[in-house]
């Protein structure tokens, strides 16, 4: 059985990664998960300067999932490079750094700093966070803006670039094509779906930000559909995510056209989810005599 995959020339021991923002920089889960087992750790988004994030409450539970409006709190690239990258380097897993910014220049500054760090295998560009007012989503909801920022980042990036797409768009295929045309090496999707919850006893919004990003098993069918549509639209590889809790969920994304998958909100529910997903994929491959995990990619029967 071969679980190895390759995305933009980078090989991964298996297709299971952590979704950005749900796994810190790996440090927070190192006592719960053998990081050496993971295909990659995708870090929490990092910006040029420290960002304090949004007021609390920042999270709320909803049926089969959760809403968050963290607001991309992060310690900034300096602390990240001094502390988080050396920590992750101790492990035998790939490092993908998620990058956020308010302006194109912000993104480029971080991308350039990361270019000096050989241990970072790929960059994931967050143009899809629904919880900050400037930057991020502003680049991720219009195809021409996505094209421009992708091109600019590609001009400065030393590592292959993954553009992380928002589901809060009319036509995901159009967005995927714009990123591909601008030179993106891969896509990841979906980021969270904008949602809202109201506490009927207090007559208040559950989140201080009023709206937040919905994640967890509740969004999985939407995510599978969008991964399928994006895979139909482009040739570059796709990392699929949205509510993955089990190996079966992961296989569904692979069949829809994802070359790899990320576990997100379910890390919170069971810190052991990533390892269980890896085992589940292996069990599926064994049961159905799948030689290479690659054989599952896009293999849904039409």
């Amino acid at each position, binding site marked *: 059985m071969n679980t190895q995959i390759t995305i933009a020339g980078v090989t991964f021991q298996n297709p299971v990664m952590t979704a950005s923002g749900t796994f810190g920089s790996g440090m*927070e889960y190192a006592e719960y998960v053998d990081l050496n087992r993971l295909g990659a750790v995708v870090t929490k988004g990092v910006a040029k300067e420290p960002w304090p994030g949004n007021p609390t409450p920042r999270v709320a539970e909803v049926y089969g999932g959760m809403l968050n409006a963290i607001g991309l709190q992060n310690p900034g690239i300096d602390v990240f490079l001094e502390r988080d990258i050396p920590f992750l380097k101790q492990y035998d897993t790939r490092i993908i750094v998620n990058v956020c910014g308010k302006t194109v220049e912000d993104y480029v500054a971080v991308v350039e700093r990361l270019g000096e760090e050989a241990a970072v295998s790929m960059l994931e560009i967050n143009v899809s966070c629904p919880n900050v007012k400037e930057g991020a989503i502003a680049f991720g909801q219009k195809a021409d803006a996505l094209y421009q920022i992708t091109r600019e980042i590609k001009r400065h990036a030393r590592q292959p670039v993954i553009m992380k797409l928002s589901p809060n768009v009319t036509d995901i295929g159009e967005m995927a094509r714009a990123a591909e045309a601008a030179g993106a090496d891969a896509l990841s999707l979906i980021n969270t779906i904008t949602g809202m919850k109201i506490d009927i006893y207090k007559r208040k919004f559950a989140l201080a930000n009023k709206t937040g990003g919905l994640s967890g098993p509740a969004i999985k069918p939407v995510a599978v559909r969008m991964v399928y549509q994006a895979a139909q639209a482009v040739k570059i590889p796709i990392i699929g995510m949205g509510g993955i809790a089990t190996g079966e969920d992961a296989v569904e994304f692979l069949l829809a056209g994802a070359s790899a998958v990320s576990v997100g909100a379910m890390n919170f529910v069971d810190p*052991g989810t990533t390892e269980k997903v890896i085992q589940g994929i292996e069990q599926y491959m064994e049961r159905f005599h799948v030689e290479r995990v690659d054989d599952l990619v896009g293999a849904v029967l039409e």
Partner: protein
Amino acid sequence: MKKRERAKILSHVEIAADIFEMWLETEAAGRAKPGQFIGVFTGDKSMLLLRPISICEVKEDGTALRIVYRRGEPGTGTYAVSQCLPQSSVEILGPLGNGFPLEAGEGKRALLVGGGIGIPPLVELAKRLDAKKQIAVGYRGSGQFFLDRDLAAWGELFLATEDGSSGTKGNVMDAIFRNGLEADVIYACGPMPMLRAVKELAAQRGIPAYLSLEERMACGVGACLGCVVKTEMVHHHTNVGNARICTDGPVFEAGEVSI
């Protein structure tokens, strides 16, 4: 590796109106310190996240722990937990968080302050803290008492009730002032207005106060950055002006946090 694990429910009783006590058989008990909490999962897949519940007491042999929690409205996670039968089990994560610093109070005059559902963690603290202890706790009314007898076993107890049916009429701060309680260090858990008043009191008297905070939480391990509290200074881990209640706390020295 630490992991989410199943714990047997040894007993489960409503000890006051809407207040439930559960004893859980778990290895986590052996590692638990006063002021830490566990994440309790409902077992209902529509309610996925952990419920952070403070550890009330640990059995002497380290094989079981006690949690005391408010049930809440039907449809909430704690309500679902309240439906679990004795001898069945729940899944938990923990112990989580830092806990109360015992060394800060050892050999001194310690004042333990609790309000409502913030009272439970004071039990294990009172048990383990080697100090001259005065314990002030506030309830709605005398029909609502819980854990008062447990606390009385470990220190001098002062009660406050909102309706004046027992102890000092008013809140726990009224009980502290009315009884002229003096201390070298304060430990507190309860509603935010109470914690703010304790912080102010400690600042006036120039003594340290350790406050246990709460906030809506998702991961419980410091990854999601959901449960932050503003800090007076840039925090050493986050590198911004806030700290994670689940891992940097839930207990903070009052001067560290802006509440």
